[in-house]
């Protein structure tokens, strides 16, 4: 079972993992990534974050990434949740949770999904510091991470 959710409301990562596991006794491994809002970026204190997105395309983009993960590896369940709108430090921004019979597939699928989400899903971060608002720049290391999945792994 796969689920993708884009939401303005906060989410509880623990609840998402419980929903993923759903007491399924055939699950052997669960790998979870949680991306959290940090109070420091590029050396500056960040007061708040605003996440803009492209409604409609975000859902499709995430669904495509999840489908691709399912076609590459034998996984059992997958949940992706991504916040949009206003966030504060320590808020979970994104969760990717993958359940599978064995651990290797869960690790690969989870990292693949977050790597692709970072460079392919239409979200943009704008942060508020003491000096005002600024758009967050894309990181080259994220492009590199995505490329590694593309030259056969």
């Amino acid at each position, binding site marked *: 079972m796969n689920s993708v959710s884009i939401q303005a409301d906060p989410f509880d990562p623990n609840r998402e993992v419980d929903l993923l596991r759903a007491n399924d006794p055939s699950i052997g491994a669960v790998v979870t990534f949680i991306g959290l809002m940090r109070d420091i970026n590029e050396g500056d204190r960040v007061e708040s974050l605003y996440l803009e997105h*492209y409604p409609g395309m975000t859902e499709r983009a995430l669904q495509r990434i999840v489908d691709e993960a399912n076609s590459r590896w034998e996984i059992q369940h997958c949940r992706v949740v991504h916040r949009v709108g206003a966030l504060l430090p320590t808020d979970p921004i994104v969760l990717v949770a993958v359940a599978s019979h064995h651990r290797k597939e869960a690790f690969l699928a989870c990292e693949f999904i*977050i790597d692709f989400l*970072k460079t392919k899903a*239409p*979200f*943009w971060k704008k942060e508020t510091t003491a000096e005002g608002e600024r758009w967050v720049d*894309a990181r080259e290391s994220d492009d590199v991470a995505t490329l590694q999945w593309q030259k056969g792994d």
Partner: protein
Amino acid sequence: MIQILFFARFREELGVASEQLELDGLSSIGDLLEALCGRGDVWARLFAEDQRVMMALNQKLADRNTPLKAGDEVAFFPPVTGG
């Protein structure tokens, strides 16, 4: 007609979130980008060849070579920074 959308920094700098445009001989997203560039000023700066511009056709990532047809939804945006 096609629908054009701009997001994030592009939307802010252009002061435009969306517009409708006649296809008018534009056969690819590259043609459209050139037409937008031709408007000069901030348009020329944002959509210059050396700028990092991501684009989508009908909510799927695309590139300059992707062909256009009437009714399409085209979006331009800076490199994404979610997650």
